[in-house]
């Protein structure tokens, strides 16, 4: 065959390139293979980890912050705080000498002070705030945590003191201030944007006080940050540059990690874990996920209003088999309505043993025969449930063994949630990932009477249980709250409004060059305090 010149040119080009290969950037530049593009850089507007990692965890600080790798909080931009005995007034003493980032689009003329805190929260709670008029936006998480309705006032006492007045006691208030949406914005920058009629830029050109300064963003490709040379907490700043290499496919992230094109990757495929653990260049730290997947029973519908029926269905599920098949072993069997890393977790509770005969007997006792109903399976993969369809099929088979016929149903994700909240299901798969490390974020949000019609998918309003969590919410002593939550979990276990299935394990594959990385129970990815060997 006679080759055309084009062949030769291409062949030569390929050969010439054969020697080249990509190299991870040198020096103290950490490359993070992240899973997706953030929608923007104003953390208050969003609800997902992908958005928070790129903004709240890099560019911003908050008054209180989560201790790295924990759900406990530590001082952030507030050095200390005091709470009045009635739990309604919080006074924060602000850190001095904190500088906002200097970038080509903003040069601060003053340091961080009370005006910035007041601006940040006024914008979030006051719909008529001038900034909201100029750049209309919704703050879903603020609403979800009840902050917009519960904060009565945010006042500047002096340039370094701020007071929050609450309408009702909120034991999780300090935790909520550590959440991404509470990131402190610069009032001076906001005013500059307002004056130049460019308020919308707050979402694309962020200015914060955090460890990294935003440099550039190319959608679906890369986000670049430089270390903040003026950072107030220098001992935690051990990198020169931080780069997010946006890589949506998990297999490709792994190939990039293997080849040294990135140092850390998120969300590996369970099937790749063995090979990763065997790779001498990689480390794969892991942690029980701060999440829970469960099967919910609609207690407002017959026959799920009968506790015996719920108990029977609960004990007929072979959870161990599900963890092997659905979570590929990367899950922990769940017993309580919260993960074991959540304070107030009741360690004394045990699952009802898997027992087909006893389950049949319980159904008989309840007077239920030839039971037939729907089991809803989510159409999407979630952190707490990697394969809802498979899980539903396994539960369907388990229930068939006790003579129960479950028909699997699914809807588009938004529709699924909408219908489930309206109580249209019989039984359904769902779950939760913890937001702020407070027990109320599990028991109150998913099982409280006030959450019926919302996240209380079991539509379960049980006075004895609800009294305990309402009481606990109003207390500030962690020890006293723990006692009440432990009791509440005992009631939950007896009444079985839902069957906890598993907490998925979180794996963070990374190069052995990376030192000091801590997995966040809250599914955030932070790189302050991290260094490269």
């Amino acid at each position, binding site marked *: 065959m006679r080759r055309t010149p084009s062949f030769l040119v291409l062949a030569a080009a390929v050969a010439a390139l054969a020697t080249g290969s990509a190299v991870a950037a040198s020096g103290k530049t950490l490359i993070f293979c992240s899973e997706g593009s953030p929608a923007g850089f104003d953390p208050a507007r969003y609800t997902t980890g992908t958005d928070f990692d790129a903004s709240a965890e890099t560019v911003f600080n908050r008054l209180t912050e989560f201790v790295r790798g924990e759900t406990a909080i530590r001082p952030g931009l507030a050095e200390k705080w005091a709470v009045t005995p009635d739990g309604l007034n919080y006074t924060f003493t602000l850190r001095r000498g904190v500088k906002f980032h200097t970038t080509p689009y903003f040069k601060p003329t003053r340091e961080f002070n009370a005006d910035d805190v007041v601006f940040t929260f006024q914008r979030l709670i006051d719909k008529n705030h001038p900034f909201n008029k100029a750049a209309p936006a919704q703050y879903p998480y603020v609403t979800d945590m009840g902050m917009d309705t519960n904060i009565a006032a945010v006042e500047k006492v002096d340039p370094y003191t701020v007071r929050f007045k609450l309408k009702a006691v909120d034991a999780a208030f300090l935790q909520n201030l550590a959440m991404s949406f509470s990131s402190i914005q610069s009032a001076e920058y906001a005013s500059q944007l307002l004056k130049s009629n460019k308020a919308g830029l707050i979402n694309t050109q962020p200015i914060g006080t955090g460890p990294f300064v935003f440099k550039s963003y190319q959608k679906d490709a890369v986000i670049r940050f430089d270390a903040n040379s003026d950072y107030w907490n220098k001992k935690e700043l051990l990198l020169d540059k931080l780069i997010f290499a946006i890589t*949506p496919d998990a297999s490709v992230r792994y190939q990039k990690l293997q*080849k040294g094109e990135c140092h850390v990757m998120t969300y590996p495929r369970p099937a790749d874990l063995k090979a990763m653990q065997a790779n001498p260049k990689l480390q794969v730290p892991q942690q029980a996920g701060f999440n829970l997947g469960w099967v919910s029973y609609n207690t407002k519908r017959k026959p799920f209003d009968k506790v015996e029926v719920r108990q029977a269905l609960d004990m007929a599920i072979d959870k161990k088999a599900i963890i092997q098949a659905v979570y590929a072993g990367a899950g922990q069997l769940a017993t309580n309505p919260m993960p074991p890393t959540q304070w107030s977790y009741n360690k004394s509770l045990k699952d009802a043993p898997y027992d087909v005969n006893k389950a049949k007997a319980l159904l008989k006792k309840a007077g239920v025969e030839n039971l037939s109903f729907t089991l809803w399976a989510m159409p999407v993969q979630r952190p707490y449930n990697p394969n809802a369809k498979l899980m539903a099929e396994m539960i369907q088979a388990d229930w068939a063994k006790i003579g129960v016929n479950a028909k699997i149903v699914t809807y588009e994700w938004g529709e699924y949630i909408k219908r489930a909240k309206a109580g249209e299901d019989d039984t359904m798969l769902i779950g939760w990932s913890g937001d702020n490390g407070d027990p109320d974020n599990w028991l109150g949000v998913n099982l409280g009477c006030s959450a019926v019609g919302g996240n209380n998918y079991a539509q379960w309003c049980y006075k004895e249980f609800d009294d305990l969590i309402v009481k606990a919410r109003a207390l500030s002593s962690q020890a006293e709250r723990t006692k009440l939550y432990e009791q509440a979990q005992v009631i939950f276990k007896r009444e079985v409004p839902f069957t906890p299935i598993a907490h998925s394990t979180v794996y963070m594959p990374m190069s052995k060059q990376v030192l000091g990385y801590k997995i966040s129970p809250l599914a955030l990815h932070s790189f302050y305090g991290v260094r490269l060997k």
Partner: protein
Amino acid sequence: MIQFLLKRLGVVIPTFLGITVLAFALIHVIPGDPVLVMLGERNIDPTYYREAMHRLGLDLPLWQQYLHYLGNLLQGDLGTSIKTNIPVLQEFLALFPATLELSLAAMGFALVFGLAAGIVAAVKRGTVVDHTVMGAALTGYSMPIFWWGLILIMVVSVHLGLTPVSGRIDIEYDIAPITGLMLIDTLISGEPGAFVSALEHLILPAIVLGTIPLAVIARMTRSAMLEVLREDYIRTARAKGLSRSRVILKHALRNALMPVVTVIGLQVGTMLAGAVLTETIFSWPGIGKWLIDAIGARDYPVVQGGILLIASMIILVNLLVDLLYGVINPRIRHAR
């Protein structure tokens, strides 16, 4: 020629209107809305939900929403992304050059190798070479893009270390987008090594995206060539004593190109569909991934605007192909 062009443009306007109706209707038929999708399991306050839907204009009856959309469209406004608050056209223009660069490279690869394979198979008809080439083309045509991409990454990038795994350029280069075409921008930037890096990153995605068009072009070239090679004028050319390559490349190929050009036009649609997967595998920041994400997030303006822009391009390319016929085959030009 002008009459022909006018005729074609007369068809284009109703086609556009049809596309706007279809794009609008299809995305609105899918259940769910952007606010619900964004909130997921989060609790939703009915007042908050109503306000959010009102702010986005999604509380109006569908026909009113469509008329608003059409009205804005006539003023050249494709709308603003619900998710990012950035105008759709601005997002499209930022991402489109990446898809264009990838598609051009893939088409180049498919043309060079597809034509060559087709010619060789036709000339060596019935031999082992013909069977091998056509077998390979059939395999290429049936190859699932996702699988093919991952296999190439594993073998060529990770195992052999010949090319980078994904992205458009080594992360150490921070090239400011001027044209958006990385090969050109790297040349303009003058940063040493940047152009080679961009070229290295383009190889695997172009091969993956170009594989199916390559197979189609190869098969089409072969059958067109076989037909032409049987013609009397080829025999005459040979009898005149012309060299074999001159007969094949000048006399046969030019006449065989007609159906091939048609196929190339049709492949533009296939390419854009393939770009969705290729861009996901190779973390290539183009419009394919952008559109898929928008469908997932029910970002209506992006889906509608994106579909309209892509459809316009396909229409434009096919119009160009029609015009190309005339250039390639003077008989058609004169007939018009």
